[in-house]
């Protein structure tokens, strides 16, 4: 019966094309929305995910990675005192302004890390090395920040405003490291940047203490013990901190949610289009289904026809949609929007779309099941 499904589906090219356009458009919409959402969440949690630490300790009631408040750095000793802790390090995260060539100021997100250990360092370097920030007012900017900051030339001096003005020299370029807020990320040495905090009466403060455990499987237990020891801090395992950050941007700000809901909507609309197309198709061929029944086809044969037509349409439409995404992807990313398209996303989205399509086709199946073969004798 698969044979019949193919023949009828491809015989009516007009209807097939309309169905395919529907599925393709909703695939593209859903995929773009989800990929943008995942891209944003990927950026929001990039530093956490790329830092080789099992535990993140931030200020009390911290909402997300981007909003860390300074706390005294000596608490690292309490962390190091834990026998489960292999090493602990500090990372500063704060915001400052840089002066552009034309005199305007742009906000930047400062990440100050230990260049000796590389904990919190940029993980994808285009030019220079992460350890180059050591020993002076040196910094690394991301290549993608050129859109905001203008040309980034190694060796150029940049004026940084953090309470007072300080001059930093650009010694490296990272590649594709962005913040959720799209504010340019500026990496520098912890030891060089920390004294600047003194101007805010926050001498010897840090934004994060991160720790690597001897046994990462113990992360939950160690985090719990650290919570007891560090009452003025919030302690997370790496996964918890990723989750906290994602939830903050998705639920609390609603920004991610908008993308998420649009994606779901696109999938549902796609399903509705396919369902409606398959239903109209079934209605137009009701007489043929009746004839099939009279000729001795079982209901299951007819379901096979309808469902396989649905699956064929879904597969072709989805493949076209994915192809379009890969064609336009570069253009979209050049415009500064990150698309995160992973094989898992493609698989999950396909099955979601397929499920919605099949659910919609089920309406047709019910219609055909109720169909009385006596209708075949109607003139």
């Amino acid at each position, binding site marked *: *019966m698969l*044979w*019949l499904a193919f*023949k*009828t589906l*491809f*015989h*009516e090219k007009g209807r097939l094309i309309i169905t395919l356009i529907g599925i393709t458009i909703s695939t593209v919409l859903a995929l773009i929305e989800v990929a943008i959402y995942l891209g944003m969440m990927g950026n929001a949690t990039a530093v956490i995910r790329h830092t080789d630490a099992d535990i993140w300790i931030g200020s009390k009631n911290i909402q997300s990675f981007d909003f860390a408040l300074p706390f005294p750095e000596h608490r690292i000793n309490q962390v190091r005192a834990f026998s489960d802790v292999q090493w602990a390090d500090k990372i500063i995260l704060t915001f400052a302004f840089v002066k552009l060539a034309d005199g305007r100021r742009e906000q930047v997100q400062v990440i100050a890390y230990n260049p000796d250990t590389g904990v919190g360092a940029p993980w994808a370097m285009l030019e220079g090395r992460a350890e180059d920030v050591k020993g002076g007012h040196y910094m690394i900017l991301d290549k993608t920040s050129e859109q905001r900051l203008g040309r980034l030339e190694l060796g150029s001096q940049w004026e940084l405003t953090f309470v007072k003005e300080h001059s930093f020299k650009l010694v490296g370029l990272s590649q594709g490291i962005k913040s959720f807020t799209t504010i340019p990320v500026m990496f520098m040495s912890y030891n060089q940047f920390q004294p600047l905090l003194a101007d805010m009466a926050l001498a010897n403060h840090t934004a994060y203490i991160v720790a690597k455990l001897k046994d990462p499987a113990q992360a939950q237990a160690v985090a719990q013990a650290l919570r007891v020891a560090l009452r003025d801090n919030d302690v997370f395992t790496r996964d918890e901190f990723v989750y906290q950050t994602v939830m903050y941007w998705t639920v609390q700000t609603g920004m991610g949610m908008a993308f998420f809901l649009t994606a779901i909507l696109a999938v549902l609309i796609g399903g509705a289009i396919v369902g409606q197309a398959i239903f109209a198709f079934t209605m137009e061929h009701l*007489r*043929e289904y*009746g*004839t*099939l*029944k*009279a*000729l*001795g*086809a*079982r209901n299951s*044969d007819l379901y096979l026809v309808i469902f396989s037509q649905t699956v064929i349409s879904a597969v072709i439409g989805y493949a076209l949609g994915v192809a379009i995404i890969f064609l336009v992807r570069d253009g979209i990313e050049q415009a500064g929007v990150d698309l995160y398209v992973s094989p898992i996303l493609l698989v999950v989205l396909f099955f979601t779309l397929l499920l919605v399509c099949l659910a919609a086709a089920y309406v047709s199946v019910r219609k055909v099941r109720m169909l009385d*073969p*006596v209708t*075949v*004798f*109607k*003139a």
Partner: protein
Amino acid sequence: MTAVLEVKEVSKVYGAGAGKVVAVDAVTLGLSKGEVLLIMGPSGSGKTTLLSIMGCILRPTSGEVRVAGKMVTTLGEEELPDIRKNHIGFVFQAFNLFPSLTAAENVELVLRLKGYDRKKIKAQALELLDKVGLVKRAGLYPADLSGGEKQRTSFARALAGDPPIILADEPTANLDSRTGREVLTLLRTLAEAAGKAIAIVSHDPKAEELAHRVVFLEDGRLKT
């Protein structure tokens, strides 16, 4: 002669109360191998309803239907498709060909449905179309066939898989009178050649000449 298809005291009642219609009223009828039976009667007399019951498409309200000696009225819903598939070929007034299939593919469809060897069905379909004189038109879609060609294609389809019984409801109603005669002659020739049991519903006078036996229906009742 043994009847390959028998209906005994079958009735079909539609609706209830004041709107109740007795479409078929206690009809007893047998159809034998090699026989062409013509069922005549005015419009609304229950011909199509009777034929549907004979074809195991419609369940009678009461009475018995036997196909090849097997009682089908007591069979479950899931067993009836197989009875139709294995015993009965249908010919419809409106041909009911599949527009997205060529004439040959329309015949193939039934062979596929009946589980014939995929490699042989193409040749078999052509052979059947040859019997109805359509082998040259095998590759055309129904939209490109004349009415007579469509009906001949549907004969070939009804013969596919060699069912012992052929049931035809007003096979000439959509054809001009000359084509109608040709088609009926063909039907009779096929029946005799292959020893089919054929029941035709028609009020075409030409059908009377070709039938071995004629029965009349009036208000659902058989008049002999």
